[in-house]
């Protein structure tokens, strides 16, 4: 694969990969660095990319793995000790003012989900992959993907209803 083909087939994935990395790392700069790293890794293997059934799936798997490595590396960061001592922020308890506010609350709820659920929800509900593709990426069977997704969706609904977050305060 030459640079021209790489530009057409691989680089347009940049925003999808960025969104996944940002969902997992919750940091825009780190997410962007990860995407760059993914592209360099894929480019280094450009002679072999044709052997893969889906370069897109390979790119998503690589992104996820790099994010998981990053998360593992900063499991006990020194600079976050202060945050740990103070009470953790209770997400999504205050009433919301508008749709933008509600979106922010939903993002916070998704942050509390396990990584697997986060990734599956990102790939399905935001990027629109089908279960077969997600099962391949996650190395799970399709039913396990469906069950995890269903749990994630219900968890969000449960928290939204419990805190009446859908009832906007109107001024």
């Amino acid at each position, binding site marked *: 694969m030459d640079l021209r083909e790489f530009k057409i087939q691989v680089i347009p994935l940049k925003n999808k990969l960025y969104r996944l990395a940002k969902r997992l790392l919750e940091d*825009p700069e780190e997410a962007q660095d990860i995407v760059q790293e993914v*592209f360099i890794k894929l*480019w280094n293997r450009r002679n*072999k990319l044709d052997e893969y059934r889906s370069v897109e799936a390979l790119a998503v798997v690589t992104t996820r793995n790099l994010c998981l490595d990053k998360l593992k590396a900063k499991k006990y960061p020194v600079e976050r000790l202060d945050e740990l001592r103070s009470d953790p922020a209770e997400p999504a308890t205050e009433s919301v003012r508008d749709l933008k506010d509600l979106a922010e609350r*939903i993002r916070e709820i998704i942050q509390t989900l396990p990584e697997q659920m986060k990734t599956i929800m990102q790939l399905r509900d935001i990027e*629109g992959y089908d279960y077969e593709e997600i099962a391949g990426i996650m190395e799970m069977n399709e039913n396990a993907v469906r069950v995890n997704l269903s749990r994630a969706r219900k968890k969000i609904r449960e928290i939204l209803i419990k805190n009446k*977050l859908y009832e906007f305060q109107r001024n």
Partner: protein
Amino acid sequence: MNSREIEELIGKFYEGATTPEEERQLRALFSHEEVPSHLAVHAGLFRFYEDAAKEEIPDPDFEKQLLETLDETPVITLYSRKKQFLYLASMAATFLLLVGLFFTLRNDVFRRSSVDQDNLEVAYRQTQQALLLLSVNLNTGFDQARKLENFQLGLDQTKKLQTFQKGIEQMNKFSIFYQYQQLIINPGDKTRP
């Protein structure tokens, strides 16, 4: 789509039973501002999805910088799966060949030794006879060695003879002395040396 159909679709959605196409329909439906209040809780989620899918890398120079980096990156040749398979297969073949050779050669050795086992009794007897013969000849040899001892004694005796020889030489000197004495006493006698 009427309200009941929408509610059914939402129910399926939470069970993970909707298709990507149905989910696109729901997203499109809730992107409109006016949503019945009893569906408001779901509307928020679909709108969140809609907005989240539009998020992009904030750095406008990202692609330009990336392409510059890629241009400088050399190709790193990694073993493809096919090559890895060939490599492993050749290793396995070599191993099997060695194992095969080992057992073939070992069986050959076994077969040879089994022939020997058939003749073992014959061989044993032959060996026994050979040892007996050796033993007899050894005894003869020992007898010969004893004769050698006697010879040694003889040699010792000849040493005494050597001493005797010395005595004779002394006597010869005496005889020469005697001859000169005779010569002095009888100088005219030319028959004597």
